[in-house]
């Protein structure tokens, strides 16, 4: 079995490299938190920072890791179908898939933690450069190497949980169904997602309720509100994003541009890919815009009450709270699109054979990136606006006072640029191939 695990990983390295990159990013962030924890042993006030950083990054990590694991398994369905035809039992197929996920996750996490351990010493003074944390030259840095295996296990654990359903599905699906189908199946809501959503909504409700009638000191917890709301939205992402994408893109006439027509269909149809691309950008936008909005709102509240509290996010706090999620979101979004480039090659060949101009397909790739980024941004705006409204209501301010999308839009634009690169490069590469060769390979 181990031979099958490694040979298949080698043969489909182009697909697995995406999951590997996500695991590297998770390993790096987990490693940074571990290093902070180890350093904080001598400086207890740093420990809470490390825990907060972990909480924010963990949510993004779970969303991105699970998404990457599922997408990888979905991309590999054809290969798993061929195994079944070679009489590999469904149970063994599932076991091999899980073993592959574990191997890739651990390898990626090891690389990520190694890079982090090597860069922690030069990185630390950069991250803690805000005046509030000075002086830091006396801090004894500890990379926390003994904690690293815990990071590897955590990354592998999330990867396995995220890919569990896909792995079981890979073993159960009829091989002929997979081989006949020319596209990925549409995965919608599952009962697990519904339960998770219900739990997260309950948690959000509890936190929101706790903010009413409390003093201003207790409002610090409100920073977790966008986190919980984004997590709740992630759990129902396949249903919500699909509906949102269909709704807003239908506002533009389908007859206006062929490129728009093609892009909309590709984005709507590839639900697994779309969700994997949009989730990270939504999380990034929701967290950044949500937290900056709350910070701005709380600042106004503090000023109004003439208090001396400080609610402004300094550079260090911003990096620690949002650096991890943003890095993960960026890697996750780009990786998702790159992983789907194989099907893009075939789609491009089919469209060229149908009479599409190369320029139309390049424009369609641009529109597709725009559709993903805009859908994710709209969902992220809802998260930021909702969390802001709850806190504003708790302090009896107008619901949308303090709402700031500017910083979030930076994330969206960065996400758009990454996704654009990830849609354009495979499209341009596919355009250089002879359509006949691509279509003949499929036969």
């Amino acid at each position, binding site marked *: 079995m181990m031979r099958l695990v490694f040979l298949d990983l080698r043969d489909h390295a182009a697909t697995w490299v995406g999951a590997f990159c996500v695991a590297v990013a998770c390993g790096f962030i987990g490693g940074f938190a571990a290093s902070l924890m180890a350093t904080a042993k001598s400086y207890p006030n740093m420990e809470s920072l490390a825990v907060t950083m972990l909480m924010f990054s963990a949510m993004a990590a779970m969303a991105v890791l699970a998404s990457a694991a599922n997408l990888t398994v979905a991309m590999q369905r054809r290969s798993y179908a061929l195994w079944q035809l070679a009489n590999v039992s469904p149970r063994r197929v599932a076991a091999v898939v899980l073993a592959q996920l574990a191997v890739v996750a651990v390898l990626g996490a090891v690389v990520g933690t190694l890079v982090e351990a090597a860069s922690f010493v030069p990185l630390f003074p950069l991250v803690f450069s805000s005046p509030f944390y000075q002086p830091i030259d006396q801090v004894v840095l500890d990379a926390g190497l003994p904690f690293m295996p815990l990071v590897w296990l955590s990354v592998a654990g999330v990867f396995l949980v995220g890919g569990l359903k896909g792995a079981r599905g890979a073993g159960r699906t009829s091989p002929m169904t997979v081989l006949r189908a020319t596209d990925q199946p549409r995965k919608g809501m599952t009962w697990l997602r519904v339960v998770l959503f219900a739990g997260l909504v309950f948690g959000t409700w509890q936190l929101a309720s706790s903010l009413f009638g409390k003093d201003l000191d207790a409002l610090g917890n409100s920073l977790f509100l966008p986190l919980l709301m984004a997590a709740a939205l992630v759990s129902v992402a396949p249903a919500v994003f699909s509906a949102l994408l269909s709704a807003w893109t239908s506002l533009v006439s389908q*007859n206006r541009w062929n490129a728009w027509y093609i892009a909309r269909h590709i984005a709507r149809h590839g639900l697994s890919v779309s969700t994997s691309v949009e989730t990270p950008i939504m999380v990034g936008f929701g967290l950044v815009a949500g937290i900056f909005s709350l910070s701005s709102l709380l600042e106004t509240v503090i000023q109004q009450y003439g208090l001396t509290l400080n609610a402004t996010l300094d550079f260090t706090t911003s990096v620690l709270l949002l650096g991890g999620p943003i890095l993960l979101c960026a890697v996750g979004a780009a990786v998702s699109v790159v992983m789907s480039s194989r099907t893009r090659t075939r789609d491009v060949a089919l469209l060229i054979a149908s*009479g599409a101009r190369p320029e139309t397909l390049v424009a369609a790739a641009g529109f597709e990136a725009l559709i993903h980024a805009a859908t994710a941004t709209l969902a992220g705006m809802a998260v930021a606006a909702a969390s802001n409204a709850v806190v504003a209501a708790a302090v009896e301010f107008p619901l949308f006072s303090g709402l700031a999308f500017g910083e979030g839009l930076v994330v969206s634009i960065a996400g758009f640029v990454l996704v654009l690169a990830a849609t354009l490069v495979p499209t341009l590469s596919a355009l250089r191939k002879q359509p*006949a060769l691509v279509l003949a390979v499929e036969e």
Partner: protein
Amino acid sequence: MSCTVVAREVCKSFVIGRGSKRRATDVLRGVSLHVAAGEMVAIVGPSGSGKSTLLYCLSGLEAADAGSVEVMGRQVVGAGRNDLFKTRRDHVGFIFQSYNLIPSLTAGENVSLPARLAGRPLTAAQVREVLAGVGLEGREKSRPADMSGGEQQRVAIARALAGGADVVFADEPTGALDSKNGREALGLLRGIADDPARSVVMVTHDLEAASMADRILVLKDGRVVRELGRSNPTDILKALEAAR
């Protein structure tokens, strides 16, 4: 008699192998043929004889290394990207063995796509009519994944028709179909060729399919070694065996 496709001395070679084992293999070695309007031509031959490569070179999906191919009077070999696109858009339709429908589009959208890309979008009624013409009434909203192989191939044929193609190139159109669906697909192709303005060029292993063509070209080692008029499967088999 006007010709839709005229090919002269078409050559094509592929480089196969890696490193020191790299070598060029000649797949087409000077193929010449013509296809008249209202004609159905079948290309048969043993595996590896270059049938599919010839079809792709004739249609402009693959670039020939040398020779000349004219589709509706437009040169395909050495044509620029835009000229090639215009030739395909205005005159050519494809039917593949594995249907090659675009999975994200419904049957109706697949059918109307070439016309839409050509800037002549079809109305919903026209799409319904074309689909009805291939026996798929009311299936315009179905997705390829929800259709049988025979139905998908009919959509592919409808797509080639709806685009207004003057020449339909079909690569093993019955290869993935059972005999009943295969016969129906061939009947539709025959119907296209019966239109005096259109023609069909079909690559096939199926002798029954080849027997429906007006002319049969037998290809071997990248050359046309024999040409038959309308023939029955037994005669085509004899010609094929003689070519082996």
